[in-house]
């Protein structure tokens, strides 16, 4: 695979800001991959996306598209309209005075591919998202989901080399979000469009990405596949951001070596005094056994449909007590006050 985009040491500080919005950010994007920038609000992910698009200047660092340097430090060497990047805005930014068809056709005829028959291309694109009959409508006459789809095909229409998406699903409600998220991934993959997607939603990131870049306060925390991020988080912040996690001290267990049977205990999680164990890597048993880590009393049991999240209070050898979260997938029942042995899942 070829590297399409190289980001090298990009930093940015806004006037009167306490800290840098971006601090020496570096990563690569491979041709055809879907890369997600994940971070809480204020992590600098949107600023980064805007710098890549050429809508914002950096303070230092370089951005290369293909082998061409497009941004260097404060200089935008190539303006946004000549970068051949598509951008899906958070609020879609559909032109309210243009019909849907005109919105989609807006970027056509100026792309690198010359001037294809526009009308045909527009209706093909609209059909692709099943909105062929909406070409004559105005954006304010569409639903939120329809607007999102139009924003996506408008950005895809000129066959951009790189598609940038800024929180594209955040303005949609939950059920629609999941549907559109999957639909969008399928469309992007079918178009073989290299994509950078910005989101604050870890679940979205895990679901759609080929690779994930985790940003926190302008600093890249980890770059990896979803499984790497979930299974081998580089630090406690990432571990807790991408799903529930038990942060345990080895001193809380009579025999800490038994913890190593848990799947999520991988380096670097194992290295220190602290261990991070995901709730699904723990199981419960009513009988004692050689694998048993500790004994706990059920505090609460939350039903999640496909699973059940149990919180237990467990005495530690030091006299205090710790709280453990265990995810159960079977039909085992646990009610408040029950006593269980906690052991590695599958043991």
């Amino acid at each position: 695979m070829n590297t399409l985009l190289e980001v090298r040491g990009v930093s940015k500080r806004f006037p009167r800001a306490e800290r840098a919005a971006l601090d020496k950010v570096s990563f690569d994007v491979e041709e055809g991959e879907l890369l997600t920038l994940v971070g809480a609000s204020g992590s600098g992910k949107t600023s980064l996306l805007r710098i890549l698009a050429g809508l914002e200047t950096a303070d230092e660092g370089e951005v290369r598209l293909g082998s061409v340097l497009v941004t260097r430090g404060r200089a935008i060497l190539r303006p946004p309209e000549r970068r051949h990047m598509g951008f899906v805005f958070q609020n879609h930014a559909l032109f309210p005075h243009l019909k849907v068809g005109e919105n989609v056709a807006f970027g056509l005829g100026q792309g690198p591919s010359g001037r294809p028959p526009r009308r045909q291309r527009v209706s093909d694109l609209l059909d692709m998202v099943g909105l062929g009959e909406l070409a004559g409508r105005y954006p304010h006459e569409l639903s939120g989901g329809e607007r999102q789809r139009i924003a996506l095909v408008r950005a895809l229409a000129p066959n951009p080399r790189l598609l940038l998406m800024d929180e594209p699903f955040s303005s949609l409600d939950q059920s629609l979000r999941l549907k559109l998220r999957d639909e969008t991934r399928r469309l992007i993959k079918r178009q073989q469009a290299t994509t950078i997607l910005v989101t604050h939603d870890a679940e979205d990131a895990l679901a759609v990405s080929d690779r994930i870049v985790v940003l926190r306060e302008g600093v890249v925390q980890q770059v990896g596949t979803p499984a790497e991020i979930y299974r081998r988080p580089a630090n406690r912040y990432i571990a807790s951001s991408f799903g529930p996690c038990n942060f345990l001290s080895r001193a809380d267990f009579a025999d800490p070596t038994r913890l190593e049977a848990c799947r999520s205990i991988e380096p670097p999680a194992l290295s220190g005094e602290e261990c991070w164990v995901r709730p699904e890597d723990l199981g419960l048993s009513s009988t004692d056994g050689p694998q048993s880590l500790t004994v706990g009393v059920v505090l609460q049991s939350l039903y999640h449909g496909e699973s059940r999240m149990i919180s237990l209070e467990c005495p530690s050898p030091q006299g205090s007590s710790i709280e453990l979260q265990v995810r159960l997938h079977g039909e085992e029942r646990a009610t408040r006050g029950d006593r269980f042995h906690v052991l590695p899942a599958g043991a």
Partner: protein
Amino acid sequence: MTPLRSSTAPAGNNLTAAAPGHIASRAVGTALIWLPAACVLLPLLIVGWRSLGGAGTAWERVVQYRLWDYLGSTALLIFLVVMLAIAVGVTCAWLVSAYDFAGRRSLEWLLILPLGVPGFVAGAAYLDGFEQATPLFLWVREHVGLEAFLFSQRILPWFGTVLVLVVTLYPYVYLSCRASFAGRQADLIEAARMLGCSPVRAFFRIVLPLARPAIAAGAALVAMETANDYGVVTLFGINTLTPGVFRSWSEGSLVSAMRLALILLGLVMFVLVLERAQRGRRGYAGDTRERPLARRPVVGGKAALVWIVCGIPLLLGFVWPVFRFLRWGLAASNSADWSGYWGALFNSTWLSLLACAVVVATAFWLTAGRRAHRLPGGDSIQNMASLGYAIPSALLAVGIGALVSDLSRVGGLAWLALSASATGLVFAYWVRFMAVGIQPVAAGQAGVAHDLHAAARTLGHTASRALFRVDLRLLMPALTGAAMLCFVDVFKELTLTLVMRPFDFETLATLTFRLTSEGRIPEASVPALVLVAGGMIGVAALNRLMRSPR
């Protein structure tokens, strides 16, 4: 406008337990809601009805000799003024919205200042420029020929009228465009650039089309003001419909005057229909969560260029007229008729205060009062009451003038003829400027959560008490703004005042206009400057009302 006393309802409007007193008070309240709209329609009905009567040969003569001249001049003047005002207003609004330069914030409000200069005041400052140009015309006659000379003589008044109207009216376009450009378009412009548009192309494909309703709204105001203008066209001798109405009236042909006024109304309505029709089905408002435009900094020569471009209308519409009147005023201070000035100032002030109080009370009642008391009649009531602004002053004047003179002929009402001219005048102001009060107050109310009134009601306040303790307080900024605007509009009003005022009664506007048209411009400088100073109140109000949503 007195508040409703819902005395019998224990805590607000309990419709199921409506006592007779309650029903009565609701009936009065409802009547009061409809009264302003009815009063706006009254002059229209009178003029419509009376113009059906026989006009004899007077109307035939008007049609034969003057009507087409009136129509042509009015249409041409409106077209020229509107086009140029759009060019000036859009350019200035874009420059102060899209660029950041030294003094931008000052320029932002300086550009509204010409709105505070009444057209006939600005016109007076340019009138004598014609005399200065005499050598130029002599040169034209000698070197270019007689035809060119005659042509230049015909063009010159047009040049003056258009110039004066454009530089005093462009702020309407400027203000509405500035509000549109301040609206969150940054995302849309960036989206256009990501789709391959250069910044210049993005301006023409995105910014301008999106601003079209704002441009049209501003342009409609400019067109109405131009159609209504009496002072400037009279000073420069252009025969438009408004002076035509008064000419027929002063010649004693009331029916001709009314018919001409109706034609003028038709023209204004045509403009308003155009303004409405251009919107179509399209959307214009961006998403409210989008970001406003980031201003591009410009320095040095480019910043100077921006100042020069924006400075020209400011100079022509404000600085130059004020400067000239200041100089005249200083030179002529010993020949000034101070008692006349004081009398005019007194008259202008009390008329403006009275009209402004009535208008603001009406606006409050039609918006907050109607909602608080759940009185029937939706927003259409507000729209109907606001129609007065579209009724030409000339039509209001002949309609209300006819009404007053008819009433005074009824037995026992002869006294009306004397006092009614002042009453009629305030009534005319009320009808004409009701919209000036309603619009800011309605906009202000849209920003006030209805929950706040509801909260007061659940805490045991009656509708009226909540209206005064909650709504009135919350609407205070909007009401103050409306009051200031209205005060200034009446303060500098010329057309209605000129024809409806009682005998020998001068306001600052009529005094300035009379002195100017008698060629006594230096003597007019004191009232003219006071008018401009008063106009600044309106500018301050506008600036505040425009700024708040940002």
